[in-house]
């Protein structure tokens, strides 16, 4: 293969000035990409992956200092003027950004913006450009493209917007597409659609793709080669199979070992990587991963390892570690290197479920919101059927995972529970007490036993209060005498793995993972019996998630807690939950014991959901048969009649005959047992049929 690389980046370094000192965002990055190839760049926050791609496009602020070389088809890009670079941008190299809502100009129609991309580089009439825009919209799978072209970005759904961005990116048949976290902000089933669209775009244009993401599963399915970045530098690079199956750098090993796997039935403890990614200001000498590396030796602190090609692996597999040869020779796995904690089962688990007390019960819970349109003239135009009749229960010491995509109603459900309101319809029973009859004092008393951990560690702690005050608040509110509070706060901090002397610090001084631990400590302050967790790890870096998940499990075991665990990340749910409920548009589609539901899902939606989730396992990813759902999630204010899932259901579209379809349209399916008449695995589908989605390898 002596073809010239399409893009060759050599020793790229980007430094930003800041108040506290220069920030070395990218340090000596080198990679190349061949025409038509897909290169994945993987890293967490602070790894420099996005900055490097912005540098290629020449879109960094002028205060950034950039050195090194970026050669596109042999021509050097660094140092070129804005004028010259703008002939390349959008024409030869185009870019897709992460958040399509903020990435599209709100005041121009989508069609105009796509036509603009065409008009900049081609001499066409306005009409012709708009025709091309419509053509592109159709290519990326947007229905009614001509109508949709005259809509504004905010009228599109997230998935549609991202398709429009892809349309814009391929408008001029580019040779290289840089996709910066293109699916991070999207729901799982939509993500699968977008990845498929990207693949189609690649086939149509023949372009090479640089896929930047933190999601190892996405990379496993999409990339041919991958580069792993840490603290601004590449630490491992190679063909996708090499890096995933034979990682040779401790960070990569740890990363792959810390991800909960969707397809593993055994609840293996995750191997967490201690600590968090370093600050890029005043990086110490030596390897930046040293503080977190269980394999560190003295040399690591002094000399930063170079990216060195390994001896025995496939061609081009290189790692930046002083001990990578050793890892290779002994074929070390992540479990060999990283100590895996042992977490037992809670005592309560010994008692069969049916005999345990119920800490939470929902019976046909309903919550509707008035649909208000217009920012100035607020008027009611309809109803959002956020939660439309769900029933579930949680027993003592049990973890129930509540999963679903946007608009399914899971957040509304937990808000209803936490508010302890009298529901519009149905019942909420907390610790045996019905919320309907509760007085303010009753509610206050219940709040001692019920607590919550929120998703965003940045927003869930008051930035103006030191940790000691944050933790003292629940204690003070419920009358714990002042003398005892300090001791309890120290105890709490220790339980969650922080140091007691940290209590006078402010939230900004902690990392994301540590902040989340403070949030957990706050939730435990009053010794609750049920903790509601709203996506507690999704806002954390991948390498930190494992530590927090392990902590949650340990706490559950030690303290006998019950969890209501809301998540959209099914792999985490599989790892931590005993039971799972899958929600769709305000109703429960499937509910049951977690292993059963995941290995033999019965409802088509669950099946599609599981099928859409990318696994960090390249061979499996390539071999998998994917179920790609059609269309967008319907608006919760206008749910389809009968079965709500029918508009996207793959069964409805494929296997059923007209008579069966009519039943789906007319009759709403109720939850029925799938494993025998008294079974607790329920699915709401007229034609439910269990099969092992995750093992389905029909080939692409």
């Amino acid at each position: 293969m002596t073809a010239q690389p399409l893009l060759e980046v050599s020793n790229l370094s980007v430094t930003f000035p800041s108040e506290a000192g220069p920030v070395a965002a990218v340090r000596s990055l080198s990679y190349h990409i061949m025409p038509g190839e897909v290169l994945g760049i993987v890293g967490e926050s602070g790894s420099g992956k996005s900055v490097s791609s912005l540098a290629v496009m020449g879109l960094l602020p002028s205060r950034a200092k950039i050195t090194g070389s970026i050669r596109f088809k042999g021509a050097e890009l660094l140092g070129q003027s804005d004028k010259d670079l703008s002939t390349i941008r959008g024409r030869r190299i185009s870019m897709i950004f992460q958040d399509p809502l903020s990435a599209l100009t709100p005041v121009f129609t989508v069609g105009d913006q796509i036509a603009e991309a065409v008009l900049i580089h081609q001499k066409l009439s306005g009409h012709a450009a708009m025709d091309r825009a419509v053509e592109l919209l159709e290519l990326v799978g947007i229905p009614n493209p001509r109508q949709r072209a005259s809509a504004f970005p905010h009228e599109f759904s997230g998935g549609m917007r991202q398709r429009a961005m892809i349309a814009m990116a391929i408008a001029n048949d580019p040779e290289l597409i840089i996709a910066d976290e293109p699916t991070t902000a999207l729901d799982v089933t939509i993500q699968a659609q977008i990845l498929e669209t990207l693949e189609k775009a690649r086939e149509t244009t023949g372009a090479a793709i640089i896929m930047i993401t933190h999601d190892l599963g996405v990379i496993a399915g999409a990339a041919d080669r991958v580069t792993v970045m840490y603290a601004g530098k590449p630490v491992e690079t190679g063909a996708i199979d090499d890096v995933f199956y034979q990682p040779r750098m401790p960070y990569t090993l740890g990363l792959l070992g810390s991800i909960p796997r969707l397809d593993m039935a055994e609840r293996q403890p995750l191997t967490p990587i201690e600590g968090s990614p370093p600050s890029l200001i005043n990086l110490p000498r030596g390897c930046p991963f040293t503080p977190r590396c269980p394999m560190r030796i003295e040399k690591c602190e002094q000399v930063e390892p170079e990216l060195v090609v390994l001896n025995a692996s496939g061609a081009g597999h290189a790692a930046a570690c002083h001990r990578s040869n050793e890892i290779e020779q002994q074929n070390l796995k992540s479990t060999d290197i990283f100590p895996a904690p042992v977490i037992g089962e809670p005592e309560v688990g010994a008692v069969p479920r049916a005999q345990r007390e119920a800490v939470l019960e929902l019976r046909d819970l309903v919550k509707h919101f008035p649909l208000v349109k217009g920012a100035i003239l607020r008027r009611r135009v309809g109803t959002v059927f956020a939660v439309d009749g769900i029933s579930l229960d949680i027993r003592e010491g049990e973890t129930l995972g509540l999963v679903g995509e946007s608009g399914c109603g899971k957040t509304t459900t937990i808000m209803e529970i936490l508010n302890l309101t009298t529901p519009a319809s149905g019942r909420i029973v907390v610790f045996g007490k019905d919320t309907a009859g509760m007085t303010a004092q009753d509610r206050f008393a219940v709040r001692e036993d019920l607590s919550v951990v929120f998703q965003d560690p940045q927003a869930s702690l008051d930035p103006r209060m030191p940790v000691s005050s944050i933790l003292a608040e629940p204690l003070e509110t419920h009358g714990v005498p002042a003398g005892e509070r300090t001791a309890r706060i120290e105890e709490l901090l220790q339980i969650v793995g922080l140091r007691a002397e940290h209590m006078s610090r402010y939230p900004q001084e902690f990392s994301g993972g540590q902040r989340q631990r403070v949030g957990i400590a706050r939730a435990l302050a009053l010794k609750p019996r049920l903790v509601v967790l709203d996506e507690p790890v999704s806002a954390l870096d991948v390498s930190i998630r494992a530590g927090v998940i392990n902590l949650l499990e340990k706490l559950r075991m030690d303290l006998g807690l019950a969890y209501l665990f809301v998540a959209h990340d099914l792999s985490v749910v599989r790892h931590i939950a005993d039971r799972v409920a899958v929600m769709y548009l305000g109703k429960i589609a499937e509910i049951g014991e977690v292993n059963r539901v995941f290995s033999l899902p019965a409802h088509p939606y669950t099946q599609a959901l599981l099928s859409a989730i990318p696994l960090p396992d390249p061979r499996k990813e390539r071999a998998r048969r994917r179920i790609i759902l059609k269309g967008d999630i319907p608006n919760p204010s206008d749910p389809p009649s009968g079965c709500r899932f029918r508009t996207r259901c793959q069964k409805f579209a494929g296997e059923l005959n007209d008579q069966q379809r009519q039943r789906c349209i007319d009759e709403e399916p109720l939850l029925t047992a799938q494993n025998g008449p008294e079974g607790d695995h329920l699915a709401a589908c007229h034609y439910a049929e269990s099969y092992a989605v995750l093992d389905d390898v029909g080939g692409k």
Partner: protein
Amino acid sequence: MGRFLLRRLAYLIVLVVIATAATYLLAAVALNPRSNFEGRNPPPPPEVVDARLDELNLNDKTPITDRFTRWVSGLVRSDLGLTVDGGSVNDEMGRRVWVSLRLLLIGSLLGTLAGVAAGAYSAVKQYNFSDHAITLVSFVILSVNTVVLAVFLANAGTSFNNAVGNRVVYNTGEYSPGLEAWTSEGIVDRLKHLILPSLVLVLQGFAFYSRYQRNSMLDVLGSDFVRTAQAKGLRRSRALIKHALRTALIPMGTFFAYQFALIFIGSIFVEKIFTWHGMGEWFVQSIQKNDVNATAAIGMFVAILVLIAGFLSDVVTVALDPRIRRS
């Protein structure tokens, strides 16, 4: 949509009604038109004074409710009553509104346009010399209150005239007496009278809008969609003018609307110092002369202006921001 527009309008009208009534009652209670007559030398006999006050509906011996009713019934017939000098409030207002408008229109428009342009330019070329210069100048102008600015300019005008040796700019009045309005001589004369007061408005408008437009632009400049526009291949300047400016105008819309409707208020200082007989001057004089009816009428005028301003700002925002438009 229409029904709710009406509801909003009704709400605003209720507010205006309350405000107007409050102003009238307050004026009728706090002001003392009787003192105008009693202060004369020789003081007229009390019956004459009473009779005159009754005629003008300004008699403090009449119960306030009666006076109020009489005023309102006049209002409903579009008759705002009589001034303390016996003239018609309607006529006076009609005349003065035009005077103020002539005074304010050009200056405000120019000031706004110059300010927006300067603000946009300033934001784009952030931190270079012209940006600093514009920011500094605007800052200083905004710290100088209208009175001082107007007085200063009035005197500067005189000095300028002396230096040039000719009366190029006037700092008193709207026009020189004796000239026909629509002759070329007359128009030039009026323009000469207009320069100095307009300069006050231009400077203030420039200072205000350049700062706010700059801030609005800066908020937008860092936006993702500007980066996307560049990623498509637009050169930076073009991306800024086309995408950023247009989006940055949205919050400015509220300012434009409010200023447009409220320029009359701002004219009180300029009219006093440059001796133009517009609404601003009347505003102050009517209080000083204890002219209850005129005060109430002006209060109503201002309230309606604020109503228009509020409504206009909503309309402008809707027009400029498609996110709010199609709901």
